[in-house]
Structure formats: C-alpha cells, structure tokens
C-alpha cells in the first residue's frame, strides 16, 4: 500500500528556534494515528506545515499516489486536495446555524463564481442531514453554532470535516475540555471516520490516546522520538524521560 501522506525531513525555525527538526512521517490511506508529545514538541507546527499555513525551511510534504508536493500551495488548495483540519479551540462560524455551517463545508465546487451561483441541491441537503445525524446534532440544526456547548461545537467541527469528505483528517486535541461521555462519543466518531480514510489525532492526553487504541508517534523537540503501539512507546526509556516521567 502506498502512503497517503509522506512528510520528508522537514525543518522550520522561528527566530532561531527550531520548531521542527528534520521530521519525517508517513500516514497510510486509512486508519487512526495519534501524535503525542509534550508542549512545544512541534505538534501544531507540524499541522500548520501540512495544511499550508506555515512554509517549512526545507523538506517536502508529499501527497497521494502522485506524490504531489504540498509545500507552497495555499491553504484552500490543500484543503481541496482532500486534507481537512480541525483546530484545537473549536472554530465554527458562531453567528451561523448548525445547518449553514455544515452546508458551507460540504464538498462542492469551490471556485468563487461557482460558490456565488451555487444552489443548494437535494443531494447537498441529504448529505448535510446525514452528517448532522452522525454527530448527534440533528435536533440542533437551526440553532446558531454560538449557542452550542463546548462539546457540541467540537462535534460540529468534526462534522464539518466529514462534510468536506477529505482523505486525511488532521484533528488537534479533539477531547480538550470534554466530559467523559462526550469523549466517548468523540472517540466513536473518529473511529468510524478512520474506517474509510486516514485520521491523525494530535493529543496531549494519554488517557484519550489509550481509548483510541492506535499506532502512536511521539514527537519531541521537533522530531520523531518513538513510534509504535501505545504500550510500546510508553515503555521506551526516552519517552519516559521526556514526556511521562516529568
């Protein structure tokens, strides 16, 4: 099986600080993957580089079967290629309804003129409703996103990711600030999504990663420290040193 995403020895520094230091990583076309690491390990910078927000000083980010280099493409272009991103803080359009948020994210032609003259089709509606049901927000379609609780906003954002129908979901701390039942729902959502596509979860919280039960990559000081099952990496002395044995 060829890799969906191959990050090839990228490095980036901010004012002399090496946030990412010769990092290489491969993501398979389906399945869950967790990236963990202490604060400042470069997790968010890694996502910024892959999604086009930050340009690496060196290295390549190769995407898909044709190994297209994503470095230098705009955020929207990369998103249209099939990369969806969920932010740490839930970022939904708070002044708009749940239905409008989902509709805006639906995979559709994105050229500005096409968006201007787009009509919402019955198919769009069916897709949006199906996602609303999956994320458990069907009863809240007409509420403004700003009215939702923190957990519901996180789900809405995951729903918007699903609506984009991406091949790779990059999810930043999806469980932050959630109650235990909310975490379970989130875990289910991500597991189901990972059946048909790649899901990369960046997490801080070991307990949540254990629940995901997947391959884990540990980042430290901008490079990969260890990789494998959670039990494997947590028994690695280096990992214990920098991350667990605080």
């Amino acid at each position: 099986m060829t890799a969906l995403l191959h990050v090839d020895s990228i490095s980036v520094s901010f004012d002399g600080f090496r946030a990412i230091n010769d990092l290489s990583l491969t993501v398979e076309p389906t399945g869950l993957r967790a990236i963990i690491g202490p604060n400042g390990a470069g997790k968010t910078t890694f996502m910024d580089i892959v999604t086009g927000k930050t340009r690496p000083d060196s290295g390549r980010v190769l995407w898909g079967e044709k190994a297209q280099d994503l470095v230098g493409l705009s955020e929207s272009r990369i998103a249209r290629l099939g990369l969806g991103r969920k932010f740490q803080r839930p970022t939904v359009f708070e002044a708009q309804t749940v239905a409008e948020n989902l509709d805006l994210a639906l995979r559709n032609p994105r050229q500005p003129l096409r968006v201007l003259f787009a009509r919402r089709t019955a198919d769009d509606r069916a897709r949006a409703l199906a996602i609303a049901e999956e994320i458990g927000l069907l009863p809240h379609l007409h509420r403004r996103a700003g009215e939702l609780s923190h957990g519901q906003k996180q789900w809405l954002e995951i729903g918007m990711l699903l609506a984009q129908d991406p091949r790779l979901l990059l999810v930043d701390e999806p469980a932050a600030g959630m109650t235990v039942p909310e975490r379970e729902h989130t875990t289910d959502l991500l597991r189901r999504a990972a059946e048909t596509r790649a899901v990369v979860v960046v997490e801080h919280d070991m307990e949540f990663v254990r629940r995901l039960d997947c391959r884990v990559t540990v980042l430290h000081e901008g490079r990969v420290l260890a990789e494998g099952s959670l039990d494997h990496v947590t028994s690695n002395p280096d990992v214990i040193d920098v991350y667990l044995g605080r």
Partner: protein
Amino acid sequence: MTTAPSSTLRPRFVIAGNSSVLWALLVLALVTVGATVLAEAGMISTSFVKTLGKTLCLCLAAIAMDVVWGYCGILSLGHMAFFGIGGYAIGQWLMTARTTDIVTQNLAGQPLPPTPREIEQAVASQIFGVVGADDFPWIWAFSHSLALQLLMVVLVPGVLAGLFGWLAFRSRVTGVYLSILTQGMTLALSLWLFQNDSGLRGNNGLSGLQNIPGLDQWGQDRISLLFLWASAGALGAGYVLFAWLTSGRRGSAIRAIRDDEARLRFLGHGVEGLKLLVFTLTAVVTAIAGALYYPQAGIINPGEVAPLASIYLAVWVAIGGRGRLYGAALGAALVSLLSSWFTGGGAPDIPLGFYTIQWTDWWTVLLGLTFVAVTLWAPKGLGGLFDLVPSRKPRQGDWGPDDGAWRREEGQP
C-alpha cells in the same frame, strides 16, 4: 428520531428568504409615488425632489458599503472614490454633449457652416479654457458617446476595484491596514483630479450636469422627477441584488469571511476570490449610484472623492446598523438629510448667553458624538430598533445552557 424541518437548507426565492426586501420595495415605492404626486401638485419644490433623488443614490452607495463591510468584513474607506468616478464618467458625456449643442447653435448663424473640426475645437476651448487647454485630453476620448461613457461608469471602477482588490487581497492585507490602503487610494485619486493637467478640469470639476442634452424642452421640474424614479429604480434593483448576494450558501460564505476567514480557507474556499468579487461588485454599484447622483447635484469636483467622503459613508452605515441592508439605507437617508438640514441653516441656533451654538459648525461634532455613542452603546444602530417589534424580540437569557455556549452579552448574531 428527530427529523429536520422541511425548510432546512432548501433553496428559497430571495424575497421569500428575506422579508425586508418586500418592505423596502414597498417603502421605496410609496416615497417615490408620494413625492411625484406632491411635486405635480406643487406642494414640494424641485430642489426638494432633487434632494430626495440624491438621498436615494446615497442609500444605494450605503447598502453596497454594508455588503462589503457589514457582511464581508472589509472596512473599505475608499468606496466614495467609485461613486465619484461614476459621476465623472457620466459628467464627461453631459458636458461634452451640452457644450456641443450650445456651440453648434452659436455657430449656426455664420455665413459659412462650421466644419466638425471647428466645432470640436470650440467645444474643447469652452470646456478646458478654465485650465488653460484648448484640446480634448485623451481621457475624454469616449465623451461624444453616451453608450461608451455609460460603459465607463461600470468599467473604470470595476477595473480599478478589481486591480486594487487583487493586489491587496492576495497579499492578505486585512483589517485596519486594508482600510488605510483604501483611504490612500481615494486620496491619490482626489489629488490627481485636483491637478489641472489630469484632464478633468482640476479643482473646477465638471459643472452644469443638471442640464440633460436632448431634454431641453422638459424643464428641471420634470427632469428632477425622471432622476428620482431612476434613482428609486436603481436602489430597488440594488436592494434585490444584495439581498440575493447575502442569501443562501453564498451569503453564508460571505459572512464567514467576516467572522473567520482563516477557517473558511481550511474548508477549501477561495477567500481571496470571493472578497474580490464582493469588493468589485459593490464598487460598480456605488459607481452607478454616483452616475445617478451627480446629474441631480449638477456639479462634481475632486473634493467629492476626498477621504472624508468615504468615512462619512462608513459613519452612515454604522449609525444605520451594519449587517442589515435596510439599516444601512435608513442610516444614509436620515444622516444625510439631517446633515443638509443642519449645515443648510435649517436648524435654529442655540444661544447659551456666553456662546451661541451655530449648527453649521457644530453639526460635525454632534455627528461624531452620535457615531461614538452608537458604536459604544448601540452597535446594531438604527436597524436594531426593528428588533423591538414584539415578534422578533431578541433573546433575553444566555444562548445555551452549557460551557462554551454564548453568554447573553456575546449573543449578537
């Protein structure tokens, strides 16, 4: 299982989706017909009809400003530049055609009929004598043709806005920096127009625009009504256009740019392209408003595109309430009418004994204070008054029960 209401995400006709459209068109029709009846009955003066017509043009510029600022979040402080360009473009034809008529009449008594070249030179020295030139500058190349100048009304501001927006948006200039750039744009245009060799008569501007060639037999009373109707038609069409633009998925995307354009980018939307479309479209509509305004005002000069004019436009929209079209129109109408009342000596002076408040001087202070007060205490502006109608009473308590939901004070859709 809960099912979604059948109206969810269904495409709706723009009028059905936004009840303000019908109300706005109704009020507009009443004002126009009412003013026509009163004018025909001699109960209101021609100059008042012109004031009304001009006000409708300002309303059109204000709803365009509301779309670009209130909906799309681009605080353009240069939109009145496009208004002025529209005025200049139509003014070039008006002056040329009118002067040609007069010159032809004057030369008609000559024993030898004048050649076209003689007529052209006579017209040119009539128009450009004030700036010491006696030939048509290149910029007047199309001024002989109404159709071509009408094309310029939309083409010049369209190209200028497109170019400016393309440069600014693709380098991701946003917020206050973009506002400063737009101020720079309108200031540069104004300074260029002030020069005598710009070809547009320097600080004299274009004048005599109220005389419409070919309609000499009509008289100003009927011409003023013609322009009132044209302005009302343009405002109505503009209102429907912008109500359409801000509805459905396109409206949702435009408001999303205002609220979080980075997020919209990560959804794959071409934010820069959408901004450019909105910026250019509103610029063109503003120019059309200007092309209808200046024949009613009679004169245009470079002062009209000074940076201050665009700031006034933003003030009208803020006082009227941004983010709703009728609010912007209301703000523009009310503030501009009040402004001409105060500055025209309509408001009585207030003697305080030690000092007399003369409104011609103090009106701008009052307007400034109102702007500050609205921004601080009534961000919804005049349009917010419509929320007091019982059926649309705003929510009293918090918006959601849980952590992370909007609290009451945040809940301003």
